[in-house]
């Protein structure tokens, strides 16, 4: 029994120390122009989703969005987001310069709710290329962007033209 406890404690020490040393000594690959493994993607994507769900739980329900709000959000997307997340109405083109690759929203859509999208844009997602836009957008802009993003892969006909119109 004593030996079992020794072994148990040894594992609790060796594993974290090994992991820290692996990274600190520079053995962890660092280049961004590679693809994350399916395991890494699945693990971290679900961690982000769970964390966002938990954190955004306190965010109040969105104000009901009308077409004007969606168009306003779309205009923000064209100006501030499509460089990484894919051109609205454009052909699918995967970004391979960031790791993890930013989701190509016009094609993939999103499973996040409007309050969650609001929360992500406002606070960003750490250890990705997604920075926080809270300092740069008003609450109204954040909500219109969330309304737009929620509908991005199923916009009614004519909406893209309205968004692109000056």
């Amino acid at each position, binding site marked *: 029994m004593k030996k079992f406890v020794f072994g148990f404690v040894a594992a609790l020490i060796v594993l974290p120390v090994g992991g820290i040393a692996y990274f600190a000594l520079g053995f962890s690959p660092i280049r961004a122009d590679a693809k994350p493994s399916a395991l890494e993607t699945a693990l971290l994507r679900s961690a982000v989703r769970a964390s966002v769900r938990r954190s955004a739980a306190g965010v109040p329900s969105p104000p009901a969005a009308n077409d004007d709000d969606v168009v306003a959000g779309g205009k923000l997307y064209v100006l501030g987001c499509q460089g990484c997340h894919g051109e609205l109405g454009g052909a699918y083109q995967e970004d391979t310069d960031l*790791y993890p690759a930013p989701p190509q929203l016009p094609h993939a859509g999103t499973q996040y709710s409007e309050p969650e999208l609001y929360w992500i844009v406002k606070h*960003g997602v750490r250890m990705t290329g997604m920075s926080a836009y809270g300092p740069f957008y008003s609450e109204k802009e954040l909500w219109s962007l969330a309304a737009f993003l929620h509908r991005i892969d199923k916009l009614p006909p004519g909406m893209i033209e309205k968004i692109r119109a000056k």
Partner: protein
Amino acid sequence: MKNFIAGFLAGILVLITGVLGYLRLGLLDARSDAAIPDWTARFLYSGIHASVRRTAPKLQNPLPQSDETLIAGGKLYLNDCVGCHGEPGKPPSDFGATFYPPAPQFPRVGTKYSEAEVFWVAKHGIRRTGMSAQGSSYADPKLWSLAAFISRFPNLPPHVWEEIQRKSAM
């Protein structure tokens, strides 16, 4: 010995389950606008540098050490990097601060990386940060000029920066 191994395996199992559970329950804070603890920043930056040091080929900058090289690199920096890494003579970038970890402000702090390492990072990017790979956008000589330029921070010759601004204003 058998018991020790059984305990060790149990320890591994508990650790992995614990980490997976922690992630699955969403207990890891995802926000990038939270202040990064000092020790976390230092740990990340030093691990990244260690990996770059290990990976980046130890090359000499093939370009001549001249004002022209610095100016070419500076123009690239002004076009593509200032948004996150800050502009010389201006306050630190607000945008760069909204990443986690935040983008280092080169004009103020300079860099501990060698030119070959700066070149390698600019070309290949740094995973799990906002630093994207520029190798698909710029050819090697451009990135070498950028590396020469960034390596001169924070002691950039003033006439070089004036020249860069003059050229980009035209």
